[in-house]
């Protein structure tokens, strides 16, 4: 089964509090984690995201498109990155997700990907 692991961290405090050395250490830890789940076959996709200040939110209401800066909802923790993984079941996904370095400073949301029949003819 496929699971999306969403990494949430407190953006403001996180960035300001981090020294370049700490940031390098964290990146190295992420690198090692990514390598380990590639080796174990769990990794499908994953990346860090630009901060939410780089985000644009779109809504269409009554046929009119409006755009606003930033994420849709203001929360203390912002989506900072994600992994898409393949795991035997939810508990295996939880085990893999609990090794994401961000779990130690923020939180990881594990969401099963809904099963859909692949479209005919491919694309």
């Amino acid at each position, binding site marked *: 089964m496929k699971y999306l692991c969403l990494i949430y961290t407190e953006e403001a405090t996180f960035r300001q509090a981090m020294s370049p050395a700490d940031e390098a250490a964290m990146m190295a*830890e992420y690198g*090692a984690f990514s390598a*380990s789940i590639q080796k174990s076959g769990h990794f499908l996709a994953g990346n860090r995201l630009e901060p939410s200040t780089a985000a644009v939110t779109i809504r269409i209401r009554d046929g009119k498109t409006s755009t606003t800066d930033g994420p849709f909802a203001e929360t203390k923790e912002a989506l900072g990155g994600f992994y898409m993984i393949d795991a035997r*079941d939810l*508990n*295996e996904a939880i085990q893999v997700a609990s090794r994401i370095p961000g779990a130690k400073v923020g939180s990881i949301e594990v969401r099963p990907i809904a099963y859909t029949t692949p479209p005919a003819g491919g694309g």
Partner: protein
Amino acid sequence: MTDLGEDHFRTLVDKFYQTESRRVLATLIRLLGDFDLAEEALHDAFVAALETWGLSGVPASPRAWLVSTGRFKAIDSLRRRARFDRSEAEVAEHLASLADEPAADLDHEVADDQLRLIFTCCHPALPPDAQVALTLREVCGLTTEEIARAFLTAPPTVAQRIVRAKAKIKEAGIPYQLPSLAELPARLDRVLHVLYLVFNEGYSASAGATVTRADLSDEAIRLGRLLVDLLPDPEAVGLLALMLLHESRRSARTSTAGEIILLAEQDRATWNREQIAEGAALVERALATRRFGAYTVQAAIAATHAQSPSAAETDWNEIVGLYDILLRADPSPVVALNRASAVAMRDGPVAGLALIEAVLAGGQLDDYHLAHSARAELCRRLGRLGEAREAYRRALRLVKQEPERRFLEARLRETGPP
């Protein structure tokens, strides 16, 4: 390698996963001292098998290969993680030092490891629903999602039960070992109880749209066989017999439309003769030890039913006698209720009803729908229709399973207008 070769190879490794993964896991938990680490090691060992067996051939002892590969993979990944978390380093070095010790007689240890795993999953320090979930996932290899579906629970609920149970095992330092001889009877009771719970949920679902969920019963029987192989205790034998004898009637218990058919009306030609023969032989084996308990007596009752050509030709005297023995071993109101129903068959509804009313007067079965439906049934047969209707209505207020509800509603209609 060609695609065809790769497919064939993947099938082969998948087959090993089916037959060996639980055994390998049970041993890895002992060697690594940690459920999560062992599961990761198991996964890595199978990934390695997929990578290397195609080139170097399947090893002479795949199980030993998977165990030692898993162990080294675990030590390796702990060492890599130690770069970021010093606490992992000590564990890795400790495990590495143990890994140098010569491996003991693996096949013998494997059987004990499977028992260790069963006893740990059913440890009395864990909550009952966690025991069930952990046993089904770690011992039987069901996925979290499958367990959730079988128990009509949300997967996150089951997942958290498992996460918390594993944390509890770690924090409370629940040892991964076989119970001492003094503890064994009580601990085995717990294991058998979990097994029977799983079986019953599959055989007579407590809630939901269908009467039975065969997968769970199959798992329970498989586990029962494993337990009898590993630890041939008379009650383990008796429980396996009981499950097989119940299972033999599965297809006869419901109509094609999903309606309940009572024992007396079932088409006995559809009962599974093979399971009955196996179950009856196991009952004999358990009874012969003279150290049997409640499961064996229940199995003996089920065997008597299974070997009778019809309800009328059943030896009800024998069945009442077995219930007398059962009541001494397990003096519960549910057993007394079942005994009363057997007495009704032997001596007629008046005698049965008097006993059921005595059991109900105890008050413990107020919320048990089957007590009220049994009373309703006997009142109906005695023509006391007002009382029958009242008792059916009471049972209907308590029932949670759809086919049982429809059955009671049909019976209520048969007793005439209110």
